């Protein structure tokens, strides 16, 4: 099993959700986050004084899938979240040791 963390532009979240749903995958966790990548933040000016704002608003989508489905998820999400401009985000794939569905007690792939 793998956890896939996807950092995307906030306005792309619906496209990413639809792309994941189209693969037949169910369930995701979405969080508003802030951060910066290679492009850094942006500049704001108040009464002539410049401030560097380092953290830019992004949205993090987390899903857990079987390891063999990771490539198709990456392809679908990359396609859905892409604008081609700096700041499109990142996809992280992390091993998952165990999953438990709290309601039934199921574990492993059955619990996803």
């Amino acid at each position, binding site marked *: 099993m793998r956890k896939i963390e996807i950092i995307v532009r906030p306005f792309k979240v619906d496209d990413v959700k639809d792309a994941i749903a189209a693969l037949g995958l169910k369930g995701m966790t979405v969080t508003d986050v802030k951060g910066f990548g290679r492009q850094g933040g942006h500049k*704001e000016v108040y*009464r002539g004084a410049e*401030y560097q704002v380092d953290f830019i608003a992004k949205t993090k989508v987390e899903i857990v899938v079987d390891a063999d489905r990771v490539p198709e998820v990456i392809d679908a999400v990359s396609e859905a979240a892409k604008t081609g401009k700096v700041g499109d985000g990142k996809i992280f794939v992390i091993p998952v040791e165990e999953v438990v569905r709290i309601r039934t007690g199921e574990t492993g792939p059955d619990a996803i």
Partner: protein
Amino acid sequence: MNSADTSFILICAALVMFMTPGLALFYGGMVRSKNVLATIMQSFIMLGLVSIIWTVVGYSLSFGTDIGGLIGGMDFFALNGVGMDTAGSPADNLPHLLFMIFQCMFAVITPALITGAFAERMKFGALLVFSSFWVVLVYAPMCHWVWGGGWMGDHGALDFAGGAVVHMSSAAAALAGCLVMGKRKGYGREPFIPHNLPMTLLGAGMLWFGWFGFNAGSALAANGLAANAFVTTHLAAAAAVLGWLLVEAMHGGKPTTLGAASGAVAGLVAITPAAGFVTPMASIVIGFGGGMVCYGGVLMKTKFGYDDSLDVVGIHGLGGTYGAIATGLFASIGAEGLFYGNASQLWIQIESCIATWGYCFAVSWVLFKLIDKFYGLRPSEEDEVSGLDVSEHSEAGYQI
């Protein structure tokens, strides 16, 4: 008594009162969200505190019988002899009570203006002590000097609606305050970004609206002079928005909404001493210049390294001084300035600026130092970092 004048000044007094909550929002939007309530409170409390001090003692010190050109006597202590008719009123067309309450609104907003200089870092109790003494020791004498029969008015200094009494006096105190109190914790190392600029623009709009009562009402009658002051006030603010945004776009790259709001206030400050003495076309020149001058004023704090949180010195100080001097240049109604052949008026204006800055700065400095010694001006570092809303008032502005 003139009922048209009375009704007009009643409305003007209400308009000037509205400026204080407007200022509270103007300032409140510019601080960080953890200090929004404390900042609003610093203005709002003046409606309570100063109104009482003014009616009991401040009005008499300002407009009581002149003592040596320096201060008024105690003849109007606790509104003694200040009644519903015109008896004893400095404006013989208005009920004495009305003149008193119109002036009260000026006294309320002036110490509120100062609070922008030390926003985010002053104890509420210390503010109450400072403001109480300041109204008695600084505002009342200044008001007497200019409008109450004191030496500055006698000398011929022109101050239609409070360039010296309100704006320079508060800015001089503001400068003393931020020098005595030092910088906010983290100043220069972390950005202090306004948390709610829409609130600031709403406040600026309320100030602009209330300023019509401030300046037009200073004619003390419903007449042509009031109309002239109304028009010059509006045009100066309008031109100052354009002046500020022009230099801001040239210097910073983009015109900002905070710049538009700041420019409007700068223009209103600049025209305040001149409003009844200049023509509408002169007010456009004064306002446009005021916007540009005050933009430069707010850059000064970075250059000189003091932390005037919300630019009281840059806007009210520089704007008020510029406006007082501009009055000496452009005056043509009821007085003549340099451009109308009276060079001595300009010199009188400069003298009045020096006296105002000197007196108000010195007394305010001593007051701040004394309060710091005996009571303490600043909250603890931990309280300052956690925000004054919680540490001073046990409240939070937003539950998100």
